[in-house]
């Protein structure tokens, strides 16, 4: 269970225009590359001083690789980070304004309060 690492993936991809496109086109490949090369980078440290212990579990890896944002919500990934990145990935495929955002709400409609914990 590594909500922090899920959030770190969403955070680092969402802020990088090239990674957003790469994640849209090749989600499984991007997740595999990111876990191997980026997951242990401490963002404010030199690359030689990376962490050694961060990895996804199978459920997390599969959810990211499948663009499966309802499962990310269930796992407690930060909802704002998830929404922002998936708007960047999918909004362009919807003609109606806010069409993707409404579909997103619909796909989460089976959740009721209390929502999954998002504390890291």
């Amino acid at each position, binding site marked *: 269970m590594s909500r922090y690492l899920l959030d770190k993936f969403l955070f680092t991809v969402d802020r990088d225009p090239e990674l957003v496109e790469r994640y849209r086109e090749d989600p499984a490949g991007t997740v595999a590359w990111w876990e191997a090369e980026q997951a242990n980078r401490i963002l404010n440290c030199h690359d030689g001083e990376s962490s050694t212990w961060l990895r996804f579990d199978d459920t997390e890896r599969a959810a990211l690789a499948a663009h499966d944002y309802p499962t990310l919500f269930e796992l407690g990934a930060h909802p704002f980070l998830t929404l922002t990145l998936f708007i960047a990935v999918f909004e362009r495929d919807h003609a109606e304004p806010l069409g993707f955002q409404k579909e997103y709400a619909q796909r989460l409609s089976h959740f009721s309060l209390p*929502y999954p914990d998002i504390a890291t």
Partner: protein
Amino acid sequence: MAELVAVIASTHHPFYHRASTSTGENRPPFADEWVRKVEAFRETLTRARPDVLVMVGSDHFHQLWLDNMPQFLVGKAPFYDANFYNEEREFGLPKMVLKGQEDLSAYVLREGLDAGFDLAFSNELRIDHSITCPIITLRPQNDLPIVPVYTNIFAPPLPQPKRFVQLGRTIRQLIESWPSDQRVAVIGTGHLSLELGGPRQFGLHGPDPQFDQKAVEWISSGDIEGCLAEVSLDSLHAPGNATHGFMDFMLMMGVAGEGRKADYVDTFDLFHTMEAYFTWYPNGAGL
């Protein structure tokens, strides 16, 4: 001593810039009324003739991150670049540069620490739409130096609501004791009920209109005690999963003072959120 000439609390809707500048068939039907309301709100700041703006907002996982997350942070820099790629992408917000009022930042940090708030600081802070939205709505000429104050309403564990109120009270005391002849306005932005990334997002109204009604009443009447009696970190989940941003309104109630009625109140019921605009004049509406 410096003079606190206006206290302003507002929502920060990132779609305002795009809605207000769009034309023709791209212009949403609610844009004209929204612009009218914002321009009337802007006048409440203009007439206070501020020299310096203390800007309270919250970084939305732009520069501040979970490997090093401050609860309350004060910027101390001569300039602040502003808005991020993903805000340009999603909201059409422009890149901006704001001037900083470093001597007031230094004063707030030193005196704030001594007053019991272990404030974090940043000497190189890129600010996001929680601070640039009110610049766009309230001071679009962007000609005044700022002191940014960031709060954590986003990444649990969060400070308790009462700490937001206490920080607001402290900010007011610090401004009023700042040895300067500057006229200072404090502008803080947050949310009423709001859901982002959850099943109640982007409905026809905010996710909890009843909460919004109560919140507007607490703020406009300065009912800090009533608000604190009903609002907790747990209770704020119910009106919407991003409603902890309401604690920035509570901070602004702390700046304005217990029982202090707002001199200006306006709201605007938009899709997915209630916009709300409040101004207090500490020295009376006659300024």
